[in-house]
């Protein structure tokens, strides 16, 4: 089992990955409360970025509506908890099929009627927007006035009900990020992964090579949606409040895709590195601007935008391919 996991990885890569994991595992013991919340955010974006990357980076279909799957996961688990006291892990068993079904429905519509490229992206925005407006009027989830989970001061962490301190969420997300990384690597090296890349590169040529492109695109959208919904469940139990206007908003979907784009679309480590770079950048800008006494509203956003622009111009393939070369990791797996 372990042999298969590490197959194709150079010793150097393994050492660095182990070191990184050790640092992340130990981080809560040294990090301040503030730093811990930043790390939680980073792990959250690393995870959803990984899920989004399956659709875009592997199968070549741009989704600009992944907030839909986050929201469906969040609302399903939260509503089941609020109404019936059903815990998040059981709720997850309902949330995942719902998000997967939504993904399958959008995928079916798009792929059956050969909606591709930007039009596919627009379709994904449309469904996220439907959900945003629809959930505003859904009484069961308290509509636009918001769904709230009961909050109390927890002296100990209840993992089964996801009630507890940030450090618990940190470790849950860390496990999710590691699992997503391993899962995506296994997928990419499997038959499905090869077919996804072929579809991404040239769909017509893929079909001529015998690939049922409809089927493999459907698999991509369903896996990506299902994975993303798990992040939604965590989101709901971490923030304890859900508003359609926030959860399903297009800016949420954009946030999800920035990490993998900056890190390197289609790479396995890109979404993780991208999340660190972006969230780290945003937080250090906040701190930095505060330190030098610039308090103009919007200044942070402007600097953030400029930095992003610079990163994308300097490293159009993402930061990870560059870092990878720097670290001398030339193993063949992306």
């Amino acid at each position, binding site marked *: 089992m372990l042999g298969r996991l590490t197959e194709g990885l150079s010793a150097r890569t393994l050492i660095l990955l182990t070191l990184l994991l050790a640092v992340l595992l130990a981080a809560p013991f040294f990090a301040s409360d503030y730093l811990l919340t930043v790390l939680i955010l980073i792990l959250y974006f690393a995870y959803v970025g990984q899920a989004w990357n399956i659709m875009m980076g592997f199968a070549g279909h741009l989704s600009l509506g992944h907030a839909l799957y986050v929201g469906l996961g969040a609302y399903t688990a939260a509503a089941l908890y609020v109404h019936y006291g059903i815990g998040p892990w059981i709720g997850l068993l309902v949330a995942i099929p719902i998000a997967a079904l939504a993904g399958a429905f959008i995928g079916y519509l798009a792929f059956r009627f050969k909606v591709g490229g930007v039009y596919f992206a627009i379709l994904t925005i449309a469904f996220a927007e439907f959900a945003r407006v629809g959930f505003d009027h859904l009484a069961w989830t308290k509509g636009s006035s918001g769904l709230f989970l009961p909050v109390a001061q927890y002296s100990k962490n209840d993992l089964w009900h996801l009630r507890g301190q940030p450090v618990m969420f940190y470790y849950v997300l860390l496990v999710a990020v590691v699992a997503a990384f391993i899962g995506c690597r296994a997928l990419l*090296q*499997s*038959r499905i992964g*090869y*077919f996804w*890349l*072929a579809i991404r*590169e*040239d769909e*017509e*040529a*893929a*079909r*001529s*090579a*015998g*690939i*049922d*492109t409809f089927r493999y695109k459907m698999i991509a959208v369903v896996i990506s949606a299902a994975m993303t919904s798990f992040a939604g469940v965590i989101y709901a139990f971490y923030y304890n409040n859900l508003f359609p206007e926030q959860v399903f908003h297009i800016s949420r979907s954009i946030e999800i895709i920035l990490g993998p784009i900056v890190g390197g679309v289609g790479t396995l480590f890109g979404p993780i590195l991208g999340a660190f770079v972006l969230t780290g950048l945003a937080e250090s800008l906040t701190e930095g601007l505060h330190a030098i006494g610039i308090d103009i509203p919007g200044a942070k956003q402007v600097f953030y935008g400029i930095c992003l622009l610079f990163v994308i111009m300097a490293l159009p393939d993402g930061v990870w391919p560059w870092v990878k070369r720097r670290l001398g990791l030339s193993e*063949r797996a992306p």
Partner: protein
Amino acid sequence: MSALLSVEGVSKRFRGLLAVDKVSFEVPEGGIYAVIGPNGAGKTTLFNMIAGVHSPDGGAITFGGERIDGLPPNEICQRGIGRTFQIVRPFPALSVEDNVIVGALMKRRDVTAARAHAHEVMRRLDLYDKRAQRASSMTLPDRKRLEVARALATDPKLLLLDEVMAGLRPTETDRIVGILRDINKESGLTILLIEHVMRAVMALAQHIVVLHHGANIAEGAPQAVVRDKAVIDSYLGAEAI
């Protein structure tokens, strides 16, 4: 020899243009057949109908005794027809090896087995030493051989080659001709090619079908076809002989 592929009265119309007009011919198992004709004669359209990209407006295409016209390209490939594209389309960001593995995975579920098969195919086509190279960074002759390799890796019974020699130097052409002839001899692979390079056609084909304005104007053994008056007038020109 029984016919592996039979095309019977196949037509295709694009708006007002009759691209292929009731074309019929048969390719026996193990044969190497060529389709020639001037630009716009409907050769690629004919190929696209056999490969499932277009479905014919009339007529029937039978492969191994089963009707295949109207089936999608992936199903046609699964039934044993591999194809290359006139304008090469390897998967650009993938390595040569991964390109061929994609083809090999069609009939194999296991990536390791597919890789082993891909290595075999790459050796055949002199691509093995370049297997780590990205397809997009290859030269045209290499990319053309890569197209053939990817199609061959799907283990076809019939290989459709759409102008794989076009734009190649004579030595490159001879190289591909040699490879194809060896494969045909050893494994009995049936080949149907579209080709303008008469040097390759004459060296390879046992039988030639000539298309002009979508219609089959001549057919037969290469030596006879190139002396056919209609073929000389419409396509080859007098100096070809």
